[in-house]
């Protein structure tokens, strides 16, 4: 029963890691106040405390209106992609599955491409930016098609046919996107900058837009963490143990997809997080979903906040796309963990 003892320390550790990342995220940036003044001002803003941080109103605006929403959005995107990835890997019992599996990414990409080709001058100045909404819609439609086509089989077969349907829908949407881009080669740069992911334009309204989906998805997935452990014995045995396997799979897939589609809609496609974070977590805390889900959620959030920092400080003002940073940081880190764990055994 040593697992029960050791596991108690991982969650507080991950919470501390996330808190440190949040703080670091609002302290660092290309413009704005000296870094150490930011925590003082944050304390000052708490009720009953009064500390002179020396921050001007403009500097506070940079911290609160520009950095803070970006950091919070990064936390949402990182946590959602990580917990969705872990959950998909659980219900499909396939370690290589990622949150974009069922066509969310390709559908959202197609939606974004359509918006950008139709309106070349850009839509971000509109009162309500249609781009995230249509990307969200595109992602959901793609998954819906995947589901309608892919769930004709029964039992183990249905999870395989679902994955295959996802591959087919992804190819179809990607082909449509390529076709559109060929005909409108002048917007390729714009579309690719969306596809590679960015958090730079994040505002509090983006945060508000994704908040309900992220909360819903996270709560539903966390509630299923024990059942994901039961599913590890396979559909048949889980059924014999009293689990309604197809219903659990449907609910988990819907929750994970809704969360993924919402964060993709505001951040673009940030690759690698949904595979790398859950796997890194598994290598460290073991394979039980009871720990893997909450820890992936917390470390995923911390990981994306940290991954976003070099992008905005280095080669300013060009900004390296976050998707590129996650791969550059994530891959070596992952290989390192893989290597050290192998040596231990």
């Amino acid at each position, binding site marked *: 029963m040593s697992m029960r003892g050791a596991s108690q320390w991982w969650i507080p550790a991950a919470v501390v890691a996330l808190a440190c990342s949040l703080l670091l995220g609002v302290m660092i940036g290309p413009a704005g106040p000296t870094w150490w003044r930011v925590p003082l001002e944050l304390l000052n803003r708490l009720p009953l405390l009064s500390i002179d941080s020396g921050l001007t109103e403009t500097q506070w605006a940079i911290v609160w209106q520009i950095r803070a929403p970006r950091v919070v959005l990064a936390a949402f995107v990182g946590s959602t992609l990580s917990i969705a990835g872990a959950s998909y890997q659980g219900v499909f019992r396939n370690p290589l599955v990622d949150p974009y599996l069922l066509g969310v990414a390709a559908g959202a990409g197609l939606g974004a491409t359509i918006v950008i080709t139709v309106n070349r001058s850009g839509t971000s100045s509109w009162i309500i930016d249609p781009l995230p909404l249509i990307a969200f819609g595109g992602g959901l439609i793609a998954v819906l098609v995947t589901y309608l086509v892919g769930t004709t089989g029964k039992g183990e077969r249905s999870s395989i046919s679902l994955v295959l349907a996802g591959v087919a829908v992804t190819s179809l949407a990607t082909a449509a996107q390529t076709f559109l881009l060929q005909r409108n080669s002048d917007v390729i740069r714009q579309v690719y900058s969306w596809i590679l992911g960015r958090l730079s334009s994040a505002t509090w309204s983006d945060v508000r837009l994704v908040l309900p989906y992220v909360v819903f998805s996270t709560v539903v997935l966390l509630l299923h963490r024990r059942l994901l452990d039961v599913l590890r014995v396979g559909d048949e*045995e889980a059924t014999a*143990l009293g689990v309604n396997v197809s219903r659990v799979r449907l609910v988990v897939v819907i929750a994970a997809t809704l969360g993924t589609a919402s964060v993709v809609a505001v951040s673009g496609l940030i690759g690698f997080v949904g595979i790398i974070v859950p796997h890194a977590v598994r290598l460290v805390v073991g394979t039980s979903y009871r720990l893997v889900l909450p820890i992936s959620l917390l470390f995923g959030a911390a990981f994306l906040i940290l991954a976003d920092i070099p992008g905005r400080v280095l080669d300013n003002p060009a900004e390296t796309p976050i998707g590129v940073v996650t791969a550059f940081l994530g891959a070596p880190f992952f290989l390192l963990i893989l290597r050290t764990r192998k040596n231990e055994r």
Partner: protein
Amino acid sequence: MTSLAFDQVRVNYAKRTAVAAFTDTVKPGEWLCIIGPNGAGKSSLLRAIAGVVPHSGRILVDGSPLTARSSRRRAQLVAYVPQSPVLPSGMTGAEYVLLGRNPFVTHFGHESELDHAMVDDVIERLDLAGLATRDVDTLSGGERQRLVIARAIAQEAPILLLDEPTAALDIGHQQQALELVDTLRLEHGLTVVSSMHDLTLAGIYSDRLVLIHEGHTVASGIARDVLNASVLAEFYGANVRVHHEDDGTVVVVPSKRETLK
């Protein structure tokens, strides 16, 4: 103790009938062993009781049909040890046995202290303390089998289904596994239905044998009646001699065909 009755139970796959109109009554506390050649429908019948494959006809537990119950309730009544169980790598022995408590935990709930205590107790009684903290990946075939039986016992179901429980084991471990089931059956008053390839062992441990062939019951009764050379030749295509020991044991020995000269 719980009885189990079958009324015209059929299991159909896409184009094939695996079990055709199986009717039988298993008395409370009885050990019924289903025998028959490969593909006869033994596993399909057990899988139907476990609720893993759909069936028509009725399977009655203490008089009421299984299909009328929720999957959770059914799992409280029937524990199933499959032919090739999946032991997820990275799971410890104790975590694996804890899965057996699933039917008693609510959908979004977690195991109570009572569930954990129950698992600790099963592990102790089955003498598995050495496996509790080990990764199931590192266990031998015999250890894995005992763990799967422990999971089924933790399920506290009055009906225990065993699909080829000895298939992967050597003769010593076969005997240990079946002795364990027999002891648990007597201790807990379990009703056991198993499928088995080893006819001698089937005869020794079960109370009654049912021989099925292509989904149909062709013989039923005690070992002495069912296990005879001509029946086995007809349905297994086997050339065997059957010995009757003084203690009542029926021994089935394969004999080699005479070499052509």
